């Protein structure tokens, strides 16, 4: 392994360790100990929180902001693809090289689109007053690094950049992930569970307009 590959692996290991520690801590802390009499189903509420409540037609943040919503969806698919591609690029480069070129270019093209989406979101933050107002350096750095990892993943798989650039970007991304706001990839799931728990117990979710 080259030094930059070792750096990226150590960063990924630290990232996984920190996120796992947070995950274990959150599980240990558990859900609130409610003493009130429930009028709905917690289980149904949590299921709905991850399904119906996430539907674009259920959220103003989606249906009132369709360009941003779709950019966000593409951006997140690109992020998870980049995470998946890291061990593939590191350990299975022979298999990657043996794949038909069309597949490689399709993946690279998809990642390029997601990186453009990420750049668009970053630009939106830079030029929108209400976002700039409560944005910190972390918001820009997280957005930039997540966009960058998608861009360099797209470029490395078509051999358009030297490996050192890819691995250093990956190392920076992995180091920042559990520290900055990108860590919402873990907290998101707990936020949805808490919402489902809250609204499910009270009978608000799942929404069933009977009358």
């Amino acid at each position, binding site marked *: 392994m080259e030094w930059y590959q070792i750096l990226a692996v150590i960063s990924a290991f630290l990232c996984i360790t920190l996120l796992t520690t947070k995950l274990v801590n959150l599980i240990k802390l558990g859900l609130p100990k409610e003493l009130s*009499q429930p009028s709905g189903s917690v289980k149904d509420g949590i299921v709905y929180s991850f399904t119906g409540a996430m539907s674009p037609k259920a959220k*103003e943040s989606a249906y009132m902001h369709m360009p941003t919503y779709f950019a966000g969806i593409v951006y997140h698919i690109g992020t998870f693809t980049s995470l998946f591609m890291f061990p593939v690029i590191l350990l299975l480069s022979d298999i990657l090289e043996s794949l038909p070129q069309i597949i490689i270019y399709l993946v690279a093209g998809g990642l390029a689109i997601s990186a453009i989406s990420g750049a668009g979101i970053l630009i939106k933050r830079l030029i929108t007053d209400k976002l700039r107002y409560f944005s910190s350096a972390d918001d820009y750095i997280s957005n930039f690094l997540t966009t960058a990892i998608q861009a360099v993943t797209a470029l490395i798989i078509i051999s358009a950049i030297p490996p050192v650039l890819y691995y250093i970007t990956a190392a920076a991304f992995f180091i920042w992930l559990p520290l900055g706001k990108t860590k919402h990839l873990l907290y998101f799931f707990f936020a949805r569970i808490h919402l489902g728990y809250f*609204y499910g117990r009270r009978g608000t979710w799942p929404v069933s307009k*009977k009358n």
Partner: protein
Amino acid sequence: MRGNEMDIKKPLEILSKKDDSKLETNMNSCVKCGLCAESCMYYLAFKEPQYVPGAKAELVSSIYRRYNTFTGKIAPSLFNAKELDKEMADKMVDMLFGACTMCGRCVKHCSIGVDIPYIVRKGREMLAVMNMVPATLQSTVDAALNTGNNMAIPQEEFVDTIKWMEEELIDEMEDANARIPLDETDKNVFYTLNPREPKFFPLSISAIAKVFYAAGESWTISSKYYDVTNYGFFNGNNDQAAQIAGYLYDEIHKLRGKKLVLGECGHGSRATRWEGPGYLKTKFDFETITAVELIASYIREGKITLDKSLNSTKVTIHDPCNLVRNGGLFNEIRFVVKSAVSDLQEMSPYGEDNFCCGGGGGALAMSEYNERRIKIGAIKAQQIAKSGAKVVITPCHNCVDQLQQLNHTYKLGVKIMTIAEIVADALVINKQ
């Protein structure tokens, strides 16, 4: 407090508690996408970035990061980790008390699902231990603590009002046995009121009494502890919230009531039914339901008969946030209203998407923010006007009060009624 220095130990303890994972989750989940902006009445009314719900939550989250995270401690400027100082606390008062009704509309529409009112409540808890609750709101809480009701109505005055309403009931029912029972023991229903009822809207008491009369209910009201409201939910002082919740808890035990029925008050219902057991750290050993659910059960069980044609004017429903979005009563409210009226036109949006009246979160009690409260209420006023309804029904006396003010300010020309009032008007009484 000297200059910008203040005792921050107690407020910071609130952010250090690890009772469950809810605090840590919500302090770390917001991605500051700003897509919650258009879900908030304050932002829609003022179009200023500090009113974005995420920005309000960030006030509390930034303090959390500064004192509870490694990154916030070593590189505060990178992560917007802020110190809790006088300037920050003043800003929190203005934004968390003066610019959020804790309606929760932003939560449902948040791209992540961050519980922003929960964060706002945490911020209010911090301000409460710093004695920074707006004086008007605190005086409302103090009145409840000292007298048993938030309007400090003397017991004699309350009893007189009830007796007056009882006479009205006897006349209307043409039945000398019609009663509004006070302080009676071993009744099925221990009923509670919003003090605005005896103070300003006594006819709503006679309306629910008429419903109980028609249903043949065994019920009572306490002459001392009848207040369903709990502004301790809004001022962020959990000890005071517990003391107020304890009044009803102790009184229902004293009178050996079987069922605590929460009068038409959104936050009061929430604070008693959902938060009350937590404040008192005990499970209630009696059933706790709202007046809406009780009336719905009367209709379903045939205990009362309603004639929709008696309410033929077009009506609309204002959904109180704490009963519908935060209380799950959407279907029950519709069931009762549709049983009592012949022409219902929903607002747009409605149900769990409905906008707050603007008077929630303690806003009605905080005259410091009257101008803001009326301005954000323009959204509700537009919703009502667009519905074309002449009557607005809402099972919440705080909402009634705000809607009355909006009715006057925006010249809506509508009548505001509670559920009990509209049901009472549709009652078919078999006078034997």
